[in-house]
């Protein structure tokens, strides 16, 4: 058998051996055995010098091709084995993807806060300031300057928590109308502000009454503010807070600090306006009070009601939250049951 035949035999036989190796270590020793310094190919190349000079190049070429072929086979096998090994490992690493995710801590804003923030953002976008006022208020601002003189029926004792005769827990955010009107410099432009905050009433807590709740006051005063502007603004609130399909309707009402006064109803959440028990079959639910600021309120605050005028509104985030989410007991908002608080985490 010629040297070439020997090599050719090695090539054929050992290629099969390579394919049969199932272990990376063995593959490595096979590689050393075949391609190492003591391997048959190295040996054959070394034995080349015994060949006639004219055969050497072709033999050399052949030997190299055998080496390359075997080396290639080893590499291929190595990749195969590595892949098998990895697959085995991956199979071993298999997990139950249905096990629960690891808990993380995430706190939520209070649902009423969410509504207040939403209202604030809406009005900030329209150029309103956000102001907050004292919760312990003077009778003067809470009532008198809001056109509720001392003997006015609308301020009966039982509705108000008094601290002294002249100091009380504010029953409404409306005193912020008087406070800002008094301070505002109209030469610098119109007054546009909202004022969210906590208010207090002398009420017994039950599903629909709370001695503490929230209000957001709004007021716009300038030379050319109309009732139509009020209507448009209230519509925006409804669309922002509840969605575009909600309409607003205005009804006559009475507040001492506005004239005309209106109450705004919104399309019933429950039935979409068709009429149901929730809306007493009217298709509408009352959500806020508003009106054109009473000239007395402007004049008492030192604003000339002949020149300036505008609208004001007051809405109740508690009521909004109750309506929006179907919460049936206002006390839920102040008892802070974690199971209640954490429900309002959906964004958008």
């Amino acid at each position: 058998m010629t040297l070439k035949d020997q090599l050719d035999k090695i090539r054929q036989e050992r290629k099969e051996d390579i394919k049969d190796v199932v272990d990376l270590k063995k593959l490595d020793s096979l590689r050393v055995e075949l391609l190492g310094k003591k391997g048959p190919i190295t040996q054959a190349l070394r034995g080349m010098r015994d060949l006639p000079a004219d055969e050497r190049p072709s033999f050399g070429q052949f030997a190299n091709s055998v080496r390359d072929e075997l080396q290639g086979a080893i590499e291929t096998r190595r990749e195969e084995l590595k892949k098998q090994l990895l697959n085995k490992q991956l199979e071993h690493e298999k997990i139950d993807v249905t096990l629960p995710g690891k808990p993380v801590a995430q706190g939520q804003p209070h649902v009423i806060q969410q509504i207040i923030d939403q209202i604030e953002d809406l009005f900030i976008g329209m150029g309103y300031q956000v102001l907050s006022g004292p919760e312990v208020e003077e009778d003067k601002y809470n009532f008198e300057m809001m056109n509720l003189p001392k003997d006015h029926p609308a301020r009966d004792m039982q509705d108000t928590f008094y601290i002294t005769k002249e100091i009380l827990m504010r029953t409404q955010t409306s005193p912020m109308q008087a406070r800002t009107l008094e301070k505002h410099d109209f030469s610098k432009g119109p007054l546009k502000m909202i004022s969210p905050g906590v208010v207090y009433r002398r009420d017994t807590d039950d599903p629909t009454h709370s001695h503490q709740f929230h209000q957001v006051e709004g007021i716009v005063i300038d030379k050319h503010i109309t009732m139509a502007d009020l209507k448009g603004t209230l519509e925006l609130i409804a669309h922002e807070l509840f969605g575009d399909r909600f309409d607003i309707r205005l009804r006559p009402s009475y507040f001492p600090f506005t004239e005309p006064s209106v109450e705004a109803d919104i399309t019933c959440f429950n039935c979409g306006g068709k009429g149901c028990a929730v809306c007493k079959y009217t298709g509408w639910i009352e959500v806020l009070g508003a009106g054109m600021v009473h000239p007395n309120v402007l004049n008492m605050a030192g604003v000339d009601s002949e020149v300036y005028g505008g609208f004001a509104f007051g809405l109740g985030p508690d009521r909004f939250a109750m309506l929006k989410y179907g919460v049936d007991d206002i006390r839920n908002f102040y008892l802070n049951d974690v199971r209640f608080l954490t429900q309002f985490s959906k964004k958008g």
Partner: protein
Amino acid sequence: MKISYSWLQEYLDIQVSPKDLAEKIERSSVEVDSVTQPSDGLKKIVVGKIVSMEPHPDSDHLKVCSVDVGDDELSQIVCGAPNVAADKKVIVALPGSRIGGNVKIKRSKMRGVVSNGMICALDEIGFSKDVVPKEWADGIYFLPEDAKVGEPVFPYLGMDDYLIDVDVTPNRGDMLSVYGVARDVGAIYGQTPKLNHPQVEEVSSLAADKVSLDVDQELAPIYTMRIVENVKIQPSPVWLQIKLWNAGIRPINNVVDVTNYILLKYGQPLHAFDYGKVSGSTIKARYAQKGEKLTTLDEAEHELSERDIVIADDQKPIALAGVMGGLNSEIDEQTTTVAIESAVFTPTLIRKTAQRQNLHTDASQHFERGVDRGGVEEAVNAAAQMMHELADGDILKGIVTGATYDVKDEVVSVTLSRVNHVLGTALTLDQVTDIFKRLGFGVQVDGETYTVSVPSTRWDIHIPADLLEEVARIYGYDNIPSTLPSGPTTIGALTEKQKLIRDSRRVLEALGLNQAISYALTTKPKASQFMMRESAVTELSWPMTADHTTLRMNLISGLLDDVAYNNARRVKDVALYEQGRVFYKDSADQVRPSEHEHIAGAVSGQLVVDPLKNAKNNAIDFYQLKGIVEKYLDNLAINGEVEFVATDRYPEMHPGRTADIQIHGHYVGFIGQVHPSVAEMYKINQTYVFELDLDALIEMPKDMNQFEPISKYPVITRDVALLVDKSVTNAQVLAQIEKKGGAYLKSVELFDIYDGKNLPGGKQSLAYTLTYQNPNATLTDDEVNQAFEKVQSTLTNELGAEIR
């Protein structure tokens, strides 16, 4: 007030259904609470005639009646009413009918005798016991002789009418009468209501000879009286009774019913006195005198105050003016001469009397909201004439007047441009004129100026803005366009303070705390716990409940109430924060407290609730909450070092697990574990809390310099483990390391604490990693070693540390 649809129809030609009318009233005038029909929920209740009647064989009070209910055969019905009698037309609930209280009537046997239905009393078919006339209170009701057998009973009792319950705002007292509603509905639909005005048929003798009046006009701006003699007291005709009971008023007798009818119709409260019971001939309207008492018609005795107004004869009060009559001058069956009072009392005085005596009547409610001062005379005339017609009374000549004045129209001017300017409308001169006319106002137009004469029936209108409201509501709010304010642009933005408050909330939420909103009014003890400074309490002068009497001076107590609420419901894991106000007073003399924004947190149980972990091991501890507070303060970027200084000065806090929080040496709040005995008092599990003065945090200078280039030079670290006394704090070690750390010490991190066995008693082992870096060059080992050496020796020298 319940307004009868059919009564309105007497004055107006209403073409819409009661429901549509109610909707229109709601959108143009006042709120409507409900529209109901008294027959709602009732069925198969018909007129029956008792043809004959036998005693029940097995009962001494039941009767077996043969009743004609319009069928071919008579119906046998057993009845136990004491007044059941043959030949009477009665209310029969047939088998399968539904009567009041949603009760179904079936064919049944009563003591063995078949009864095909039930003969009903008024309260059995839905009448409130409060409105059933006394004569029908204890038996079945007899329908009129001409009632048609077999027909539904409802039309005979006014139960087929529709009642529109209007909820009248304080300014619209005019809507508390059928005439008032008719006028407004007329204005809405452009109709003039056909209101009738009484003709009085007087006899020749003079009323003034019978009575004279002595009236304080401050109390009663208008006070008049008519005298009707020879009245025959008897029940009112059914049509009148129906009008009363549908309005929720019990028919009494023809004289009293007339006064109530006039109240419903005109909105003018009247009172009828039995003239025979009045002592002397002078009737006074005056303040009550000290010690005077009066028993009112409801048989309640009132101790009168000197601020109450009474009507009195020459000896005693005979009525609580404008509220309720006195029992001592009540109309009864023997009454022959009636004095009818028609007056206007000062609203605030009536309101206060009604409040003081806790007696709120239809009359007082009318006077509180005002009455038509121009209608006082017509009301008394109408009443007298009805008593003539219904009680055969003789009306004495003339109205006796104790006080009166000339009631004039209110004249108010407004321009068309003002109307359109305020409403945002484009109404024409004629449109607005038409609205005023529909309302029954006189109107003169000069150029674009309206001079409007408002009759006394609309006493709420005084200023141009009132007229604008009239135009807006009659024109219709739906017809007003929707726009947004135009004019100069203004900038809307949160202030720095508002932003920081919002950021504070977001950070604490991101760190796992839920926002709570607790009550600011609490008990005095709770208000005064967890105090960050000294303060006097602010208490309500007249609290509603013992739980809410005092303004809080801390937020933690409210949060602990919340934790207690949760723990009581087996919710163990509670992580809350609250941002809100506390109320301080420097001394008890300070009347109005100052208000301060605080932010506080309370965590009980696990912050991160992991069911796979041991709940106890995973429960909140000081360091976890401290981490939250540190992160929060870090986010606020306050310029200055934050220190936690151990303290035992809060009686409500664990003395060994509480720290004052100081920033740059300024006290801003505290953190720690709630004292176990306080926790027990609140009935809460172990809870960690913090409270911070948010106003102070907002005021503090901020370091917003957030960026520092990341050094490309490598860091070198050295670890050091110290054996020190347990009394040596981490803060002390850090202070020493930082003092001697050298220019390149970048950070120090505690990575191990050990105080277990294998250590000498009273010792602990602390291990720190010190990280060095030169931002401008590569540090050499030598440089680091030198610096590290200094640290080690200072720790040994200053803290007695054994370097391990």
